[in-house]
């Protein structure tokens, strides 16, 4: 009996049922392992096998150990015990799909080269039996030289046998050897090993020879200089001349060995049976039916993120509002109350409000991936996405960004290629998300509705969405040609067999996505909210030293006291001059709290900064109020509406309230009408603000999620910089052209 904790690495092809097996083994005792420099997550779980504690690491699904990217290299390094975070695995657990043995055992044969004991979990044994494939596990085990345990991970069948085999393999210790390579190849490896020294494991020296342009080659040539590349190329040429060219030599050696083992241990029906997958695929990849089903699925997904999430989000906002009121009621006016109500409670609310969208999208992603349709969607859309240098896998993340970039960016995890994934992440926020809508509705309502044909507002909104649809692919193309340039990623993708998605797996995925967002991105969003709150709150006193909150409270009390009299006066059809005068005085008093609030925000730190910045936004046609509201919308775009409300003296406007928004629209229009520039060019200025919001990166949540997904501050900083520049330029052109057209028309 072993007393120490065993470290076991779980390795397998994508679609081998690796995650299902991981969940079956470790249940709910899971956590996410953190590996610096990696953008993919690896889960860790624990279980007990008899009296032995086992720590299980779930490596990302892969077809081969030929690493081409840093992410893939981390998995190889981890297997070789070259990562400081984890001990070298005692056992490698290889998951293979019993219906597709030849290809899955290719990876297993590479794992045998590591020199670590291997156990093969022969998964989906039930599906193989249904197809008439008979596998003699004992014979296969004898041929491969490792334990082979038939399992059915989704039903928990064979799990006890598997854990027993893992412990036995660790106790046995000795590792089987995989297929033999030609002598000429071994000679070249030995010669290079001499060159590299003993601190490069033999496994990596073999990969160095086999993987042309691979990660090991880049790393070792970088370390040993171009001389190594020369030697490497000479060695590969000698191998080619001897009839053992790379990478063919590896495929021949491994598949030859695999086929010999499979031939002896597996009996297949002479004629391959037509499977359910064949019949389903005939419809789902069909020119007409496939396209229709795809459009229907995408519509359903989009509609559900956009609409089903709505009531849930309203519920969260309502609850946050009630908590805010409760806190406000419990505390006296002052910085603490304001911080808690306007900073912390609103900040927490602005994090939680994303949960419905994230969880609904991830529910869809889990179902689509679980049943195998995700790969078909990528297959159908690849042609379209390849036009902008991406692949079909970018389609769903981009489409879901039209509802909200936060879940869209999280969904890029389905893209294995690092450059494609980053390009998709960087352009996803350009897609017109639902947070831009309140800004659009405010300005379209105020400036482009009255006096315009009925179709103008709709056309303007359509145009604003179009900006995202056109700009995002263009920027993606530009990024792929410049910053994220590199060898064209290989787009060879497996179309997995269809499976019934499992409810537990879907729910687990939704909960994980929501939890990860709250924990990792939530703090950053909260910090941004509190920062902007402080900039709008301080200084809190007027020039004479009286806190604004006291003055506003006094003004509100005065307005309240006179509310009945004002209503009475307003109700009169005929009024004396004295009554008219009294009415005007009372109306001014009623507007006094909003006016004071506007004055306070004007003199706040952010207001001062906005006024100082006014020369920079004047070419866009903006005044300092628009500029300050745009600055204040950094935590989230829709905050623009509320801040503009305060600055234009229309009160704290709720972006979801149509009546308040219309009131603010009227206030903005009246304010602009009094100004010589904005009065004349009101429509051009409104268009300039809308184009700015179509292109800008005023969303702390998106930046926090980019930071989380790329594991670096550089990428969110770059996204913010390029989008802000683009937005400024777009607004500048819009205003200047709009003003010129106005002049020309006049």
């Amino acid at each position, binding site marked *: 009996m072993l007393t120490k904790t065993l470290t076991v690495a779980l390795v397998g092809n994508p679609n081998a049922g690796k995650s299902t097996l991981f969940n079956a083994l470790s249940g709910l005792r899971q956590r996410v392992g953190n590996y610096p420099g990696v953008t993919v997550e690896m889960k860790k779980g624990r279980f007990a096998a008899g009296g032995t504690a086992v720590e299980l690491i779930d490596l990302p699904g892969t*077809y*081969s150990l*030929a690493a*081409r990217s840093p992410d893939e290299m981390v998995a190889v390094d981890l297997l070789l015990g070259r990562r400081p975070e984890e001990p070298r695995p005692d056992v490698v657990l290889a998951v293979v799909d019993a*219906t*597709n043995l*030849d*290809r899955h055992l*290719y990876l297993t044969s590479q794992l045998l080269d590591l020199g670590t004991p291997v156990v093969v979990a022969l998964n989906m044994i039930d599906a193989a039996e249904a*197809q008439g494939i008979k596998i003699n596990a004992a014979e296969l085990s004898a041929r491969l030289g490792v334990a082979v345990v038939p399992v059915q991970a989704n039903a928990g069948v064979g799990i006890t046998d598997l854990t027993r085999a893992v412990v036995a393999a660790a106790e046995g210790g000795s590792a089987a050897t995989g297929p033999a390579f030609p002598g000429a190849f071994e000679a070249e490896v030995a010669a290079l090993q001499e060159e590299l020294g003993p601190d490069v494991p033999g496994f990596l020296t073999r990969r160095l020879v086999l*993987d*042309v*342009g*691979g990660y090991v080659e880049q790393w070792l040539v970088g370390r040993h200089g171009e001389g190594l590349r020369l030697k490497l190329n000479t060695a590969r040429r000698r191998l080619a001349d001897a009839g053992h060219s*790379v*990478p*063919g030599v*590896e*495929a*021949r050696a491994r*598949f030859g060995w695999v086929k010999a083992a499979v031939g002896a241990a597996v009996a297949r029906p002479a004629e*391959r049976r037509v*499977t359910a*997958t064949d019949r389903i*695929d005939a419809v789902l*990849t*069909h*020119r*007409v039916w*496939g*396209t229709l089903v795809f459009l229907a699925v995408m519509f359903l997904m989009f509609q559900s993120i956009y609409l089903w999430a709505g009531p849930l989000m309203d519920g969260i906002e309502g609850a946050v509002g009630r908590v805010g009121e409760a806190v406000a009621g419990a505390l006296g006016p002052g910085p603490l109350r304001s911080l808690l109500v306007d900073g912390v409670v609103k900040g927490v609310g602005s994090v939680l409000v994303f949960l419905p969208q994230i969880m609904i999208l991830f529910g869809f992603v889990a179902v689509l991936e679980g049943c195998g349709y995700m*790969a078909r969607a990528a*297959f*159908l*859309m*690849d*042609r*379209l996405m*390849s036009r902008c240098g991406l692949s079909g896998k970018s389609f769903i993340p981009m489409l879901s960004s039209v509802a909200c970039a936060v879940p869209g960016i999280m969904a890029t995890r389905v893209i294995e290629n690092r450059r494609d994934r980053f390009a998709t992440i960087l352009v996803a926020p350009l897609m017109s998300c639902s947070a831009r809508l309140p800004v659009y509705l405010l300005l379209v309502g105020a400036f482009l509705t009255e006096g315009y044909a009925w179709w103008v507002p709709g056309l303007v909104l359509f145009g604003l969405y179009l900006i995202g649809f056109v700009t995002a692919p263009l920027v993606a193309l530009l990024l792929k040609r410049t910053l994220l340039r590199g*060898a*064209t990623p*290989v*787009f*060879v*993708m*497996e*179309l*997995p*067999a269809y499976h019934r998605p499992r409810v537990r797996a879907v729910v687990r995925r939704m909960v994980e996505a929501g939890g990860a967002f709250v924990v990792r991105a939530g703090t950053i969003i909260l910090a941004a909210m509190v920062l902007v709150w402080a900039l709008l709150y301080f200084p809190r006193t007027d020039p004479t030293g009286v806190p604004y909150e006291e003055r506003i409270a006094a003004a509100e009390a005065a307005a309240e006291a006179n509310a009945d009299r004002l209503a009475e006066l307003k109700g009169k059809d005929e009024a004396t001059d004295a009554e008219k005068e009294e009415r005007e005085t009372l109306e001014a008093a009623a507007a006094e709290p909003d006016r004071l609030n506007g004055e306070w925000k004007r003199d706040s730190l952010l207001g001062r900064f906005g006024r100082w910045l006014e020369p920079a936004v004047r070419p866009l046609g903006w005044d300092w109020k628009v500029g300050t509201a745009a600055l204040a919308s950094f935590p989230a775009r829709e905050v623009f509406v509320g801040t503009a409300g305060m600055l234009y003296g229309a009160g704290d406007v709720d972006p979801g309230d149509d009546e308040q928004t219309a009131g603010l629209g009227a206030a903005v229009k009246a304010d602009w009408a009094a100004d010589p520039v904005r009065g004349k060019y009101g429509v051009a200025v409104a268009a300039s603000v809308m184009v700015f919001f179509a292109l800008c990166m005023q969303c702390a949540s998106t930046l926090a999620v980019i930071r989380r997904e790329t594991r670096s501050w550089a990428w969110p900083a770059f996204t913010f910089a390029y989008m802000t520049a683009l937005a400024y330029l777009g607004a500048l052109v819009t205003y200047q052209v709009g003003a010129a057209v106005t002049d020309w028309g006049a």
Partner: protein
Amino acid sequence: MPAPATPLSDLRPGDRAEVVAVAGDPALVQRLYEFGLFEGETVEFVGTAPLGDPVEVRLGNARLTLRKADAAGVTVRPV
């Protein structure tokens, strides 16, 4: 007389063919090998995506999709 060799991308849906040679970018060739698409194996051309690219092929029980430009580097002989 055996059928003349042709690029994989020129097959029609339902055609079965033996792989004669795999050429192209080393990373692509290696990936195709890893999927089991190598000299001597039999593939079935399943069809083309509705937008005209990529193509789908079946290898044993596995289905792969690859772009036409990449499939053009795979030489096959129909059987």
